[in-house]
């Protein structure tokens, strides 16, 4: 294959990656924006989404497309419930102290990982894709499902954006983000907003995982890379800024796809992690965010 088609393939792979990354990272960014806490267990919500998708498609006696669709609805709901529970039982009692929350979510990370290992096992298992179209380009064939993933991610992100900007609940969430105490004084149930935000963040990560699981297999350690990449995206985009997160996801996803294809993936990750550390030190508002 000559350079041009090779680059096209790299860009296509990068776009798929960017789409899934954007979904995961927006969940993390939303939680940070509204609640001002960093959720280290976010990658495990992603992993849970993939593992649940495997269970659902394996045990439901539906044809692959229907079973997968069921997983896309049920898995994020279950993860959202677990997240809301974790918020009420643990984070709320810590008063959302930033440092204590990080320690507690690290604990949550280990517990969820162990639960997956115990009940699901250490094997990587595939989920059958809902459909098997192949788009034949002049140089290579490309999976139609991967393009569908990009489309689905865009639709979900648009729905989140409409939800945040056009609905009453979104307005309440934004009000809480701007000023928690004033929101409470105006009769907003802040506890419920926080639990809901944490649940929505978890559900987005789980949805991203259900989208990706027919391409990558479900494994109990699969949450590690998405967590790190989401951190990178959220920080470079500016903590708490949804628009910055989306731009950064596109940049990081695409460049990671291209760099990994032409150079070593490890080198790409080293560069990305160092970049993040330096961005936080020298430009804490992010590369794209105007204000912190």
């Amino acid at each position, binding site marked *: 294959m000559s350079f041009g088609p090779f680059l096209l393939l790299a860009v296509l792979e990068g776009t798929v990656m960017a789409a899934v990354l954007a979904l995961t990272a927006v969940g993390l960014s939303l939680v940070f924006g509204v609640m001002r806490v*960093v959720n280290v267990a976010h990658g495990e919500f992603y992993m849970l989404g993939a593992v649940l998708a495997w269970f659902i498609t394996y045990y439901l006696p539906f044809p692959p497309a229907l079973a997968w669709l069921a997983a896309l609805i049920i898995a994020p709901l279950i993860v959202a419930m677990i997240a809301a529970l974790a918020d009420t039982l*643990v984070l709320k*009692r*810590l008063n959302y102290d*930033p*440092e*204590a929350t*990080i*320690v*507690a979510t*690290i*604990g*949550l*990370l*280990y*517990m*969820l*990982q*162990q*639960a997956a*290992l*115990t009940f699901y096992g250490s094997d990587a298992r595939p989920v059958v894709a809902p459909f098997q179209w192949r788009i034949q380009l002049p140089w290579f064939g490309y999976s139609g499902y991967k393009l569908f993933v990009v489309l689905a991610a865009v639709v979900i992100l648009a729905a989140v954006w409409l939800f945040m900007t056009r609905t009453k609940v979104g307005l309440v969430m934004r009000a809480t983000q701007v000023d928690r105490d004033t929101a409470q004084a105006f009769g907003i149930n802040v506890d419920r907003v926080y639990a809901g935000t944490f649940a929505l963040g978890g559900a987005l990560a789980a949805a991203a995982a259900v989208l990706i699981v027919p391409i990558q297999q479900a494994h109990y350690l699969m949450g590690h890379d998405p967590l*790190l990449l989401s*951190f990178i995206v959220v*920080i470079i985009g500016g903590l708490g800024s949804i628009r910055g997160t989306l731009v950064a996801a596109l940049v990081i996803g695409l460049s990671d796809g291209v760099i990994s294809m032409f150079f*070593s993936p*490890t*080198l790409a*990750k*080293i560069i990305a*992690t*160092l970049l*993040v*550390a*330096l961005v*936080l*030190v*020298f430009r*804490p508002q992010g590369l794209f965010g105007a204000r912190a």
Partner: protein
Amino acid sequence: MTDRAKVWGVHLLVLAALFAAQFLLPSYHVTNLARIMVLAVFAMGYNIAFGYTGLLSLGHALFFAAGMYGMGLPVWHLEWLSLPALIAGLLAGGAMAGVVGLLALRTAGVSFMIVTLMFAQAGYLTLLYLNSWTGGDEGFVVARSGRVLLGFDLATDTPRFMAAFVLFAAGLLLCLWLVRSPFGRVMVAMRENEERSRMLGYDPFRVKLTALILSGLYAGAAGAAYGMLFGYVGATFATIQYSILPMLYVLLGGAGTVLGPFLGALLMFYLIDITSGYTDAYLFVVGAALVGLVLFAPKGILGTLRERALRWLP
């Protein structure tokens, strides 16, 4: 009895009990205890940064690994003997903490946690990337010549325990002296109220950097000793898990107490050891311990004890 006598009495008593333990316990537990003492030195270093100065780092595995590789790489590639290699490991831990601190201490709180986490992750990935030099994922075994210290073969039980004990005793007494010294008080002042300490004329950046370098020296010494005593150097020791472990030990034993890190390491080690006899779900134990501690006992065992009864405990 004066407080001063009580403080020294308690710490010397703990050291005496540990020294006696090697003659009283079966050899399985003696080896465990050697491991715990080395890990406790690592945790004491973490405690200097987190417990006393208030720097919550998620990247201490980097300093531990710097010590381990600072010791192991010269033994492997340059055929250094154990004593210079050990000193190289100690210095590597301190130097790494200095470099990270110069950059990371420009941030605070959550940003500081993430920056240290990212540096540690970059360090871990670098170890994998340079696998022709570092042995990558598989690591390497430390050569026999690097495991004989001052004529004692550290691969055998008694010298290994004694080496761990000497390191631990030195670390403990140094820590006790440090936190009761004027500089130790300034460290605590940084933790309690940085702005007010600045107003009193102290330079927070310099104090925090010094504390972090001291912490790195402890971690480096522990990493070098761990590699030398147990004969293996590997990239696993640079993973995030080895940044979490000292934090867990310190939180359990009591942040900001001299004996807390050792107590935490001892209890956690045996908790995992005993539960792994019944179930292989040891990650769950670690996770539940972390959540339980931040929820119900944020001051840890000795911290709570100091609050309730023993006000003189350093």
